[in-house]
């Protein structure tokens, strides 16, 4: 029974929200649709606990794998999904963040509720699909499918300049992903030339890609890395992010910061680096440089913003600079830290966007100068704000510290100077985040508008309290969490540092006494 569930769990996770989206679309009442969406996402979360419960922490294989025929046989394009240490945490982050986002949408989304919820469920489906797919075409389909709901979420429910922002977001991302498609197509053909069969299986193409000559690898690496770097967003491809964040509705911002940006860094770690180890090595100094420069650049710009959302958006640029720098250090510390930091950034920045949403719904402005002294009027709000801030500035005891500490330690082993420069990001991070807190939470309560503000509702309190617990839980429980990722990270590190192909396999459950390997039929 467990094996059966394990075999189908990922497909369930992918398609259950899709089913939910259909149901939500046919609901009559907006309020009922909201309840239904929450129920669907909570169920999805409960399903996803199966992954944690039955994940084999000693294995780096692709677990819970399923490999079914999809497109006609000759094309070699199959429906292949699986989870390993790299994607597990991000899948969990997605399934846990989504119910919170749906809860937050009760008050932030007032019009076209059903279409919003349906689109959001489609988005969840696509995100999980992109995280678990092990077939390049399948991945590409989900990758692009993420774009469409987000395009509408920003474009329909966004702020004043939403059309500009959403178009920019769309064009940036599509340009990147088209280049990625070209690289995938090249690989597809290169594999055919080398082995005489067509396949888009990621596991097979790891081997093909790593065997390509360095020059070719560099081009392919550049094409895929560009696609992912735009999504991350890495300096200098980040300018879509502030616009998109500022215009997006609160739930959109949360999921954009919480999960969508992680797709870029996930892609780098899943595709670009293990596929083209030689090229990744050659490009590493450059990528670390971009990441580190992005840290300082994003932080300095964030400091000078007066729009709260823009400030947090630029802080994302800074934080994700850490992630990119960490993974290109090519040691376990860097890889693990990068992955952990993705999760932490999702939690703390998600919380910050939710917090901004709370006051935005009450005051309909994002200007820092409009606020001030909220601690007096909204003590719990102030508490959550400070907690989220502490998570964001990587205070020891929060997950951000573990992530940044690992990243910086990892980078230091490779390039002390870069680590030192990146370390200034820690200082600058404190400056801009505390500046935000100073201007919003502390200070005198001067603005009369603010004197009418009410503290968080029970629903908001629940959402924010959950995230606050996560901020600290990730800070102290890193060992049990990272135990899931360790074999994968180790393998990744080994294959990359030796510039060998990344080897993995599909299994239903990772336990060694389970002989149920998925057949690699037709390959």
């Amino acid at each position: 029974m467990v094996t059966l569930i394990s075999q189908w769990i990922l497909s369930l996770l992918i398609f259950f929200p899709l089913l939910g989206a259909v149901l939500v679309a046919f609901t009559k009442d907006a309020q009922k649709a909201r309840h239904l969406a929450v129920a669907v996402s909570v169920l999805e979360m409960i399903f996803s606990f199966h992954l944690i419960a039955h994940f084999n922490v000693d294995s780096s294989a692709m677990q819970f794998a399923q490999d079914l025929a999809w497109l006609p046989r000759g094309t070699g394009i199959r429906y292949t999904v699986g989870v390993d240490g790299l994607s597990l945490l991000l899948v969990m982050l997605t399934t846990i963040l989504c119910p919170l986002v749906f809860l937050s949408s009760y008050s932030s989304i007032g019009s076209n509720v059903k279409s919003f919820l349906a689109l959001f469920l489609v988005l969840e489906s696509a995100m999980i699909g992109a995280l678990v797919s092990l077939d390049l075409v399948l991945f590409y389909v989900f990758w692009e499918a993420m774009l469409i709901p987000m395009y509408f979420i920003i474009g329909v429910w966004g702020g004043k300049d939403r059309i500009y922002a959403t178009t920019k977001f769309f064009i940036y991302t599509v340009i990147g992903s088209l280049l990625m498609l070209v690289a995938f197509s090249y690989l597809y053909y290169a594999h055919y030339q080398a082995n005489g069969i067509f396949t888009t299986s990621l596991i097979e193409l790891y081997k093909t890609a790593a065997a390509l000559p360095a020059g070719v690898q560099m081009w392919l690496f550049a094409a895929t890395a560009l696609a992912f770097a735009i999504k991350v967003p890495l300096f200098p491809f980040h300018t879509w992010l502030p616009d998109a964040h500022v215009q997006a509705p609160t739930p959109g911002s949360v999921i954009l910061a919480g999960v969508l940006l992680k797709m870029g860094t996930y892609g780098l770690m899943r595709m670009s680096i293990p596929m083209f180890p030689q090229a990744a090595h050659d490009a590493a100094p450059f990528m670390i440089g971009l990441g580190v420069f992005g840290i300082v650049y994003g932080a300095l710009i964030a400091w000078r913003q007066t729009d709260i959302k823009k400030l947090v958006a630029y802080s994302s640029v800074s934080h994700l600079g850490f992630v990119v720098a960490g993974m290109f250090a090519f040691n376990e510390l860097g890889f693990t830290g990068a992955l952990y930091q993705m999760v932490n950034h999702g939690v703390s920045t998600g919380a910050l966007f939710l917090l901004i949403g709370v006051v935005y719904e009450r005051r309909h402005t994002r200007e820092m100068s409009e606020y001030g002294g909220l601690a007096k009027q909204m003590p719990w709000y102030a508490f959550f704000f400070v907690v989220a801030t502490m998570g964001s500035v990587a205070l020891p005891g929060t997950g951000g510290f573990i992530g940044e500490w690992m990243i910086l330690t990892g980078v230091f082993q490779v390039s002390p100077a870069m680590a030192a420069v990146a370390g200034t990001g820690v200082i600058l991070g404190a400056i801009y985040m505390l500046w935000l807190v100073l201007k919003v939470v502390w200070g005198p309560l001067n603005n009369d508008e603010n004197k009418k503000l009410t503290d968080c509702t029970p629903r908001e309190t629940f959402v924010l309290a959950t995230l606050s617990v996560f901020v600290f839980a990730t800070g102290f429980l890193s060992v049990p969490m990272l135990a899931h990722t360790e074999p994968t990270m180790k393998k990744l590190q080994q294959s990359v540092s030796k510039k060998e192909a990344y080897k993995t396999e599909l299994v239903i459950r990772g336990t060694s006494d389970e002989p149920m390997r998925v057949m690699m039929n037709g390959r």
Partner: protein
Amino acid sequence: MNYQAMLAAVLLIPLLGALLNGFFLRRAPRLVTVTVGTLAIAVPFVLSCLLVFGPVSAGEVIRTELFSWISVPFNEGRLEVPFGLSVDRLSGILLLIITGVGSLIHLYAGEYMSHEEGVYRFFAYLNLFVFSMLSLVLGSNMVVTFLGWEGVGVCSYLLIGYWYSDEANARAGMKAFVANRVGDLGFLLAMFMSVKLFGTLDYSRIAEALTNELAAANAPLLTAIGLCLLLGVTGKSAQLPLYIWLPDAMAGPTPVSALIHAATMVTSGIYLMTRMSFLLVHSPAAMTTIAVIGACTALFAATIGLVQNDIKKVLAYSTVSQLGFMVLGCGVGAFQFGVAHLMTHAFFKALLFLGAGSVIHAMHHEQDIRKMGGLIKKMPITGWTFVIGTLAIIGFPGLSGFFSKDEILYYAWSGTFGHPLLWVLGALAAACTSFYMVRLTYLVFFGESRVEHAHHHHDHGHGHDHHHHEIHENPLAMTLPLMILAVFSIIGGYVSMPHAIMHMLGIHAGENLITQWLAPVLEKAKVVMTAAHGEAHGSAALEWGLMGTSTLVMLIMSGFAIALYKAGPKGGESIAKAVGGLYRLILDKWRVDELYQAVIIEPLKKVGDGFFKFGDRALIEGIINEGPRGIYLVTSVLSDIQSGLVRNYLKVVFVGILALCVWIFI
């Protein structure tokens, strides 16, 4: 109850207290809040006494690991960072100071904050602070120490900005946090280097790994670690160039200033240097830098203290200056006397701050010493204990400050890394200390009363409406801590009695108490120093000479201060006028804040603006937006070809077909 559990309890009870006060006792009566807050520190104090006077004094090191915090594969092995606690003799001293002085201050604060609303927040922060401070000193590896290191920074941030309704307070908190963060970067870098060099962050493992061969092979790296640690110390212990946050931190409630910004948090730098002494002594360059920074800070801050008129500001600069002494002591290799001064300073500076708080409380938040005077008649306990504190800090013979400070000054001249110049700087600083402390005490407690009896409104955002203008002594909850601290301020110094005096008194125990106590901790450092530089080159005559000189200087300066301010605060004006420009410069604290603002903050802001305007908006957005515009230009030309006439399009198709035919068939 075994010792490991006790150790864990010592750390966790304050955290429990913070959680209780922060979440569950929000609506509880004040008495409950205060009791919980105080007990959360007092119980660990009792446990600490059991620990320190039990196994630790017998030479044991108690260790316990709460859980595994970070564990990553690293260079074929693993980098394990457990949440480990250990208490040895060094952390034992700190443990007693934190919980002991902490309990007294909590007791005091319960009364001091009696007019405040929502005092649960204050006690939650304070308990959290004690938790952080304890994890700082109890951490068995650098990461746990760093947890406390940053944790105390955050609590300090929250407590300085406790009265957040005034933005200046919140700003002061932010300044403290950011300045501390700059130092924290140094600590972080030191950690990274330790990982690279030793592959572990556990203090005892590092000590094992650091052999003389390794040290010789990695001398530059060790110097770098030392300097990075020093950066951390300058941030946390308010040394040049990062001291600027401490005077502003006086915006917090006075018990906070006493606990955090005098007795505990700011001394964590000294703790760290002593903890890492075995490593620092391998690098003479780092040690010399530490000593110079300490000496310069001591003098620099003391000069500012000379002219301040805010009672807490004077004490703040005095704290910076005293911290400079401690750093100087560590820098010249006399770590044990740095720690001894840390301890005596914790007593007398906490006493002074609490005394100042008592005055402020009685005067309804008046802090300007020009508006005080003659208070000793109205507040005898506060007054006389304050006098004891003053005598202790200026090094009046027989009181605690005399012993610890003179030992530091002696080693500044004759220590392993000492130099007479360092002594000169230190002695000058001590002279200034005598002057401004006596000036402060005299202006506040003696002479004519200059208290304004007119009703003056003060909007601290925490106003209380009962205006009894009669100044009177505070209740026992506030004076009891003063008296206890006064006793320790008198006797605390005997642990570091100089050799010369010991000889004179006929004590032939070899070393003084503090040296004996800390000998296991500093053993490795001493071996290294002795091997490289030989025994310290002092003599009894030198010791007597220096001691005499500094006592003489102290007496002269104190007398000078009393003579100058006998007639009230205007006494100094003649001198101020004589050196006009210099006076104003010092009154403006050498304008260091303004310098930083102009040299660091403003340029960084400009860079941020520049990045935003030219990098993001002009350059990247320019390319992004102009690119499509260029394409549009081309396509608009092309689109003019699209006449809209279907037949024309067909002609193009026709041409295409013909071309295809020609290509294929002909």
